[in-house]
């Protein structure tokens, strides 16, 4: 049993009849790590999260939270987990305060009013809003309420299913700050997201699922290094591009005084072939996580 990991998934599978939602998934998340769990709709992200919470029963394999089997020792496994579902299913006749009190009470611990108030302030959900029933809430307000209930007991593990869905840019910023603080206090975050810029910004590692299978598991930095860079070459006068390019260099666009190359690896070979040309300026566009992930998504789609 992998004790050292915050989340440990061993050969996890979930099948619905003939449909394979998750297939032989192996994954470890270290304590204090922020993992971005990516994949197109139906890739198996939510299914995996729901198995971790013992809402779904796997057809194969095991999942552990802090060394506790999510199915056999579910109560221990969930004793220090904050969960934000993709959709907040709450009865509309309850007030925000009632929801927060009930969910804090079900967690078994005392309600830390100071912490809750702090989260309210940061996410812009004042007490006057929490006194209203949920039928008066907008999608964004429900999302904020969801974030407060997930974070209010300062759990050691946060399972967040598309956390910024429905949040305005200011609140997204507040959420990123919250995540950074969560990491500083040593908590682990396991979040699914479709917003690649967000994953690029807040996550340490990325796990990408495709049709239930893990196809990419790397640190965000490493993925950026994997991606090819774009180099835009501005010329002082009109010129024809070099006919032969070194390996790893590919011509993307040509204009009389602007050439764009895609470069994998070091820039040296490109600089070497540019020596005879009247180069006025060189612009290197740093790769983004998105460049790599989108490629996987396109492959998935095709």
């Amino acid at each position, binding site marked *: 049993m992998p004790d050292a990991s915050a989340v440990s998934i061993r050969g996890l599978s979930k099948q619905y009849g003939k449909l394979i939602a998750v297939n032989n998934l192996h994954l470890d998340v270290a304590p204090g790590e922020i993992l971005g769990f990516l994949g197109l709709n139906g890739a198996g992200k939510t299914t995996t999260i729901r198995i971790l919470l013992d809402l779904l029963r796997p057809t194969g394999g095991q999942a552990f939270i802090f060394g506790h089997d999510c199915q056999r020792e579910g109560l221990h496994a969930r*004793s220090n987990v904050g969960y934000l579902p993709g959709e907040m299913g709450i009865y509309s006749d309850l007030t925000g305060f009632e929801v927060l009190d009930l969910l804090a009470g079900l967690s078994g611990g005392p309600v830390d009013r100071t912490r809750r108030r702090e989260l309210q302030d940061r996410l812009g959900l004042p007490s006057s809003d929490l006194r209203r029933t949920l039928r008066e809430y907008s999608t964004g307000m429900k999302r904020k309420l969801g974030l407060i209930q997930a974070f209010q007991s300062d759990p050691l593990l946060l399972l967040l299913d598309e956390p910024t869905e429905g949040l305005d840019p200011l609140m997204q910023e507040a959420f990123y700050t919250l995540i950074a603080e969560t990491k500083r206090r040593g908590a682990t975050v396991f979040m699914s997201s479709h917003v690649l810029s967000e994953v690029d910004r807040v996550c340490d590692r990325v796990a990408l699922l495709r049709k239930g299978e893990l196809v990419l598991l790397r640190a965000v930095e490493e993925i950026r290094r994997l991606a090819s860079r774009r180099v835009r070459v501005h010329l002082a006068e009109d010129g024809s591009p070099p006919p032969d390019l070194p390996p790893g260099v590919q011509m993307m666009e040509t204009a009389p005084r602007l050439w764009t190359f895609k470069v994998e690896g070091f820039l040296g070979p490109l600089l070497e072939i540019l020596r005879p040309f009247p180069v006025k300026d060189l612009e290197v566009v740093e790769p983004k996580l998105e460049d790599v992930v989108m490629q996987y998504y396109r492959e998935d789609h095709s």
Partner: protein
Amino acid sequence: MSGRPPFLLLAYSLKRMRTILLTMGALLCAFQILMVAVARAVERSGGFAQLSALIPPFARELLGPSIAMFLSFAGIVCLGYFHVAVMGSLVGLSIAVATVPASEVETGFMDLILSRPLARHWIVTRSIVAAVLSIALVLGLMVLGTWIGLETLAPSGAARPSVSLIGSLALNLGLLLLCWSAVALAIAAAARRRSVAGASAGVLALVAFLLDYVGRLWQPAESLARLSPFRYFSPFDLMMGGRLPLKNVAVLLGIALAGFLAAYVLFSRRDISH
């Protein structure tokens, strides 16, 4: 796990249902007072004897001696405990209370509840306790209405129904409702939609009611009618002075226990997905 979270969940469930439970209880309480008022009016006008005389001999033979009991002050007062409309609405209420878990799964609220360190069996236990308390509250208010009506409106010379008769009728009805709560809870424990669970339990109750009805009127169907829980609700025997048969209590309790057990098993094994 401390004991507090399950009680918190129960308190929350009861709080959400309080309006419908209190409304239903108040309506039945008022209905019973009204029935006493009706019985008093008939009693004072000497209408029971006239009504009895109007019944043709063949009908008197068909209905047996129980007809005399129903055409009496006590008969009218007790009518609420086995009136089809009252029974139908109470069975409907029991089904509504018992299908709450399916509603929580459907809305996604169950995800939030079960993502906490709360064992699944508490969801079923909560629903059983909520069903028992709901039935007790509504029937309690019904009995209270009967008592208020009798104390304030009953004519001095009228033959009032005994406390044990009212108690037995309420107990038998309560067990019948508990039985349908259990059936509905077992269905809800496996369902993803409350409407499906509620409709299934409702249709089953209707079929069982009709089966019992046919079985009482048509001899060949009698053996099949034993499958209906309504067969074990015997207000007529009670009205005739009989005691609540232990067999009826045992069968209704047995169905209830089997339903609750099935709910525990089904809910513990299911996937929570909406």
